[in-house]
């Protein structure tokens, strides 16, 4: 009796136990991909499956080839070898240590296609369109002559004073742009601030030193300072040797900058860029020699260190607003107001989202997902 049960009943259960096999064009991709999903009966899952094998053919009647395997805890496989527009048929086989223990029916035809729009990112597009609208709305207002109020940023207001104080003390100025390269927007913001600092340095006839950790940033800082000295009418004071490459190594850079701080004892130190663990090493060494220090970064983890050790700190977006703030041009300032409007909308969305989630309406959070 048991023999007959094992011989006839169990295999028939297993062979029917991969169900709901579905294959579909993988959404939001560049084509060439079909996703296959299936369900497995509980008795099969607990029956020692070691893997699933996926078979594919261009014809329903035959010619199936094994195109890959899925781990035993998965019920999904993405076939990335499909050709767009070609019809395929699939079936899945469950394999245990003993061999084939289950097989699905055949599913097809299905084909892959290229997608023109990633539908999971529609929310980002809406937000971007709104930001662009707010941005140009305020720029347009500025162009019409409507003045915009921008609060004072103490760190940027103190730039000229720091250069002036250092000059009075007869000490050089040290500008540290951090470790990152020109692909980072914070480094570009740092270059805008450097332009102002270098111009003032030239006007006061002081010396500015810039140790760099990135050769491209070194070239950019040399050009910015040279241009600023030309603008100030003091190209004779420009010394390219004061803007040099130190090392790309994080702590080597920190050691090198610390050495310069201790030897040269600059009157003003500017720590403006992207920083990591070296931030406090630099800021505390600067603090120990009594230099006036102005720092700024978008690295949120380093901000508390700068606040503790520096006289002024540009917190996050203040750093990015520097170019507009320092230029004083109405159009540039108008663009900052656009950012403020976007910020207000974001804050309102966060409050609404928090309230709805608190009251159990959790679907709203899905609207902000990008998959």
């Amino acid at each position, binding site marked *: 009796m048991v023999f007959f049960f094992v011989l006839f009943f169990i295999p028939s259960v297993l062979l029917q136990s991969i169900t709901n096999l579905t294959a579909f064009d993988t959404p939001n991709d560049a084509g060439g991909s079909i996703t296959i999903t299936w369900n497995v009966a509980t008795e099969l899952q607990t029956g020692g499956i070691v893997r699933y094998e996926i078979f594919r053919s261009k014809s329903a009647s035959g010619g199936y080839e094994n195109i890959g395997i899925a781990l035993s805890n998965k019920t999904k496989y993405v076939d990335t070898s499909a050709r767009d527009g070609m019809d395929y048929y699939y079936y899945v086989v469950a394999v245990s240590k003993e061999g084939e223990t289950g097989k699905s029916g055949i599913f097809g035809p299905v084909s892959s296609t290229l997608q023109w729009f990633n539908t999971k*990112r529609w929310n980002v597009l809406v937000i971007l369109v709104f930001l662009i609208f707010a941005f140009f709305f305020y720029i347009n207002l500025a162009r019409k002559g409507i003045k915009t109020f921008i609060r004072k940023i103490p760190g940027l207001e103190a730039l000229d004073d720091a250069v002036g104080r250092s000059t009075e003390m007869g000490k050089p100025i040290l500008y540290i742009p951090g470790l990152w390269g020109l692909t980072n927007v914070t480094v*570009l913001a740092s270059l805008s601030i450097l332009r102002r600092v270098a111009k003032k340095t030239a006007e006061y006839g002081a010396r500015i030193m810039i140790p760099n950790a990135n050769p491209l940033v*070194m070239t950019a800082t040399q050009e910015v300072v040279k241009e600023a000295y030309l603008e100030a009418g003091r190209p004779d004071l420009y010394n390219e*040797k004061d803007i*040099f490459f130190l090392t790309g190594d994080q702590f080597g850079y920190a050691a090198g900058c610390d050495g310069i701080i201790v030897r040269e004892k600059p009157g003003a130190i500017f720590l403006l860029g992207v920083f990591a663990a070296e931030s406090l090493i630099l*800021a505390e060494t600067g603090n120990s020699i009594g230099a006036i220090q102005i720092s700024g970064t978008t690295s949120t983890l380093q901000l508390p260190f700068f606040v503790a050790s520096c006289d002024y700190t540009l917190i*996050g*977006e203040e750093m990015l607003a520097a*170019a507009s703030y320092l230029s004083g041009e109405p159009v*540039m300032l108008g663009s900052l107001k656009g950012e403020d409007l976007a910020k207000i909308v974001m804050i309102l969305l966060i409050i609404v989202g928090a309230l709805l989630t608190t009251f159990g309406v959790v679907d709203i959070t899905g609207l902000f997902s990008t998959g």
Partner: protein
Amino acid sequence: MIMFERFPLLVTFFTSLLIILGFFIPRAPFGDIQQTLLVWVLIISGFAALLGVDSLLRLHIKRVTSRGEGWAYSLVLILTFVFIFGLGVFSGIKYGTAFSLASPFMYAYTYGIIPLQATMFSLLAFFITSAAYRAFKARSIDATFLLVAAALVIIGRVPIGGMVWAKLPVIADWILDWPSMAARRGVLLGITLGAIGTSLRIMVGIERSYLR
């Protein structure tokens, strides 16, 4: 002439536009364009490294030849540069890559560079102490809140905190996970919008400081 001046702005605009389109359009060539451009940046950075080496060596060779202050240190730097460069070339020839774990180049890195990096990194402990001593003074109500929060986090994050009172690690985690995280996310939101604003200004040519 006007076209010549506008050319970099046009390149910036269309490159930015392509990257934005690539974020929303998955199909080729848009989907891969950001990665392709990043590879370009890597290639350019590789060549730019020569500029850095040129700057570094020129500065120190001049200091040695002119017997400037600390010229002996510059000599050490030049000799070390030549030695490590030589090890890299030798290792590359002998092992196929300088980064083979058995190579003398990696030996110098493992037993020379890494301990030096660790030495500088360990200084951070002392700098944190001196900064904390200045920052955590109860001079105002705000500073007192900071002092109390910092004390709770410091004690809660070390083993002895949990031994003194089992709830201390829980309180420390709560401070980090909720009030501290809320503040960080507020700053991050501003940074993200600021980055988008800066990118738009650069893209449409309002901000051109990087071009001058």
